[in-house]
């Protein structure tokens, strides 16, 4: 049976060859394909949340990507070949995400695919990347890459995962905020990562999780969930995503006013939201995790300055052209860094075309130290080639007079956990 199927393929290819000799060879698509010379662009399929509940992230992922590509191309591209982005909307829907990957691989002949944030889209798309043998670089911060759930073609070298992040937060929360925590999180993979890994890490520190409040990601009003927060809660740990995050935070403030337990939030709850919106005053004094501090800090590095400027973000984390258009600063650096890593991987592996995809993945897998630099403006990172996951510094900021001011920076080691998978043992 197996043999049969191979024969079939060959015949198909053969037929294709015969047909190609005829009229099809004259079609423009074929001409370009056969001329794939060393000067042709490197095509990167960019899966982006243009529509659906992830649209705010998509807009800023897009801007960051365009800025990074411009910087890279101005500096000579990849081995002299320019980078071309082929963007495709995934509608923040896993089914469409998988179809986007098919378009990249089969219709546009992309060299690699890259993108997207929402974990359900990544989980829906990654198996297709494996089948298409298309390297898929995600910027999703979910733990699904390092958990071993995905495959050798899926990598996350540009952003740390939730498990690292929450584990590094646990000691700080217990020492500086409080010992009895209620968690509010979105009810899907990303939120479950928060629930499982934070509660484990926090309990290991001797803290206690007194309540868990999951909220469907499409919810539009939140007050009805707040009575579920137990009264003895000292800290509300909140992380929310989707278009309604502003409503969420406002209603939280309305519900508690000044009598709130202390707040520790992932900035996801306020990504792309102006912190000076009326109704958010109650957040003053509360702590936030940030992947990358939104406000330019006192100790801002030259690399952050350069990156911020290139993407077009001001010192308050908003667009330079519209101060109301606030960025998703804590996440979007991942696109910038990932593109730099793809370039480096391609150059190190002598990547020439889709036939070298496995070599590219091996080259990325062999990376380890990524020092703070223009390519890594968020900070130094250590990439684990076995788990396909990067590890790096985390930032905790405190809301002070309407701005987020850096309160603590974790070490990279704080984010380490034992390997759960060795993708390098999987075949290509």
């Amino acid at each position, binding site marked *: 049976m197996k043999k049969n*199927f191979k024969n079939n393929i060959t015949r198909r*290819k053969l037929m294709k060859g015969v047909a190609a000799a005829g009229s099809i060879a004259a079609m423009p698509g074929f001409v370009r394909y056969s001329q794939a010379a060393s000067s042709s662009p490197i095509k990167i399929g960019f899966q982006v949340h243009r529509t659906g509940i992830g649209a705010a992230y998509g807009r800023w992922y897009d801007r960051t990507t365009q800025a990074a590509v411009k910087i890279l191309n101005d500096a000579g591209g990849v081995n002299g070949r320019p980078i071309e982005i082929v963007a495709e909307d995934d509608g923040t829907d896993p*089914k*469409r995400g998988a179809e986007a990957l098919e378009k990249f691989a089969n219709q546009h002949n992309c060299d690699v695919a890259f993108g997207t944030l929402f974990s359900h889209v990544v989980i*829906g798309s990654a198996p297709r990347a494996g089948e298409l043998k298309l390297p898929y670089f995600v910027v999703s911060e979910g733990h699904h890459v390092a958990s071993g759930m995905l495959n050798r073609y899926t990598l996350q070298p540009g952003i740390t995962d939730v498990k690292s992040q929450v584990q590094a937060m646990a000691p700080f929360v217990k020492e500086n905020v409080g010992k009895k925590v209620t968690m509010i999180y979105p009810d899907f993979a990303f939120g479950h990562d928060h629930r499982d890994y934070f509660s484990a890490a926090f309990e290991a520190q001797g803290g206690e999780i007194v309540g868990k409040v999951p909220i469907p990601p499409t919810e539009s009003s939140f007050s009805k969930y707040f009575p579920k927060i137990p009264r003895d809660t000292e800290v509300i740990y909140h992380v929310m995503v989707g278009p309604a995050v502003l409503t969420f935070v406002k209603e939280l403030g309305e519900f508690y006013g000044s009598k709130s337990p202390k707040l520790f939030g992932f900035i996801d709850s306020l990504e792309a939201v102006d912190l000076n919106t009326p109704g958010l005053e109650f957040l003053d004094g509360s702590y936030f995790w940030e992947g990358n501090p939104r406000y330019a800090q006192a100790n801002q590095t030259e690399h952050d300055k350069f990156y911020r400027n290139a993407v077009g973000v001001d010192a308050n984390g908003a667009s330079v052209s519209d101060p109301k258009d606030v960025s998703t600063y804590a996440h979007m650096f991942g696109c910038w860094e990932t593109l730099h890593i793809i370039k480096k991987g391609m150059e190190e592996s002598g990547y020439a075309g889709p036939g070298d995809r496995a070599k590219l993945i091996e080259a990325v897998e062999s990376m380890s130290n990524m020092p703070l630099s223009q390519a890594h403006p968020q900070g130094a990172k250590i990439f684990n080639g076995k788990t396909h996951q990067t590890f790096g510094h985390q930032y905790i900021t405190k809301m002070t007079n309407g701005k987020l001011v850096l309160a603590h920076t974790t070490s990279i080691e704080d984010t380490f956990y034992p390997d759960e998978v060795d993708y390098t043992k999987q075949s290509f």
Partner: protein
Amino acid sequence: MRKDLILHFGALAILLFLELLGVFSDYHQGNFARILVLAAYGIGYNVLFGYTGLLSLGHALFFSAGLYASGLSIYHLDYNVGQSLILAICFSAFFSLVIGYLALRTVGVSFMIVTLMFSQVGYLCILYFGGITRGDEGIVIQQSSRVFLSLDLSDPTIRYYAALIIFSLCLIFNLWIAKSSFGRVLIAIRENSDRALMLGYNVHLYKLFAVIISGTISGLAGACYGILFGYVGASFAAVPYSIFPLLWVLIGGVGTVLGPLVGAIFMFYLIDYASDITDAYMIIVGITLLVVTLYARRGLLGELRYRYFKWIP
């Protein structure tokens, strides 16, 4: 009798030769595999809407019933493809029996609303029982589970043939129904259910059978979609997946055997093309629905049948 066999088997032969001759690029091969399975779903829908005259707004319920029955049994119970397909067929048949029995107590607009509501309950249940279904995020069926008779169904060529076989089976079944006396009663019910009742047919029972056949074919298509493309997710249970088959049937031809295929090809490529131009590509669905309802109530093949070829089943 001759002409219609030539037409339908000719269409299947063209689909086969398109593949054998390697006309498809990888991209279009993948698209057509999808289209064939979706067209099978359209055929299921057409049995109820086109032949029996019952307009359901909730067929995503049956599609996802098959999808989840096979997907969950593979994922949780380690069923193989064959077992999961059998389970999916049985489950969708039973499920459509129950839903049909309840929904058929209503008629007309109420029937449309009730099916819509049932489908919404199904969608919400998938989200509510996220522990089993993995909610929004859905389930990935691994390549290693998608093997049938030691054929790797994730291979694009094998996948195309598998989709073609499924579609052919549904098409031949539909053709047989259309020609059988059973099918003629369904058409009689569509045209005038009171008269059919007076002629002594148990209209209610016939309608129930139509729902069961329609739901089972839809469920089979759903199961095959999950197995061939490896993903089972809640978006398949949402409202748009109830609207799509209606749209395919309306475009291709209400109550024609080939109509769903024609409509599915047309819509798939129209949406594909539109999504390159705008993010708001679903506007195409809206415009097409309006154009069809206003100007072409019979759809393409229906119009051809009405004007020229009376014999098209």
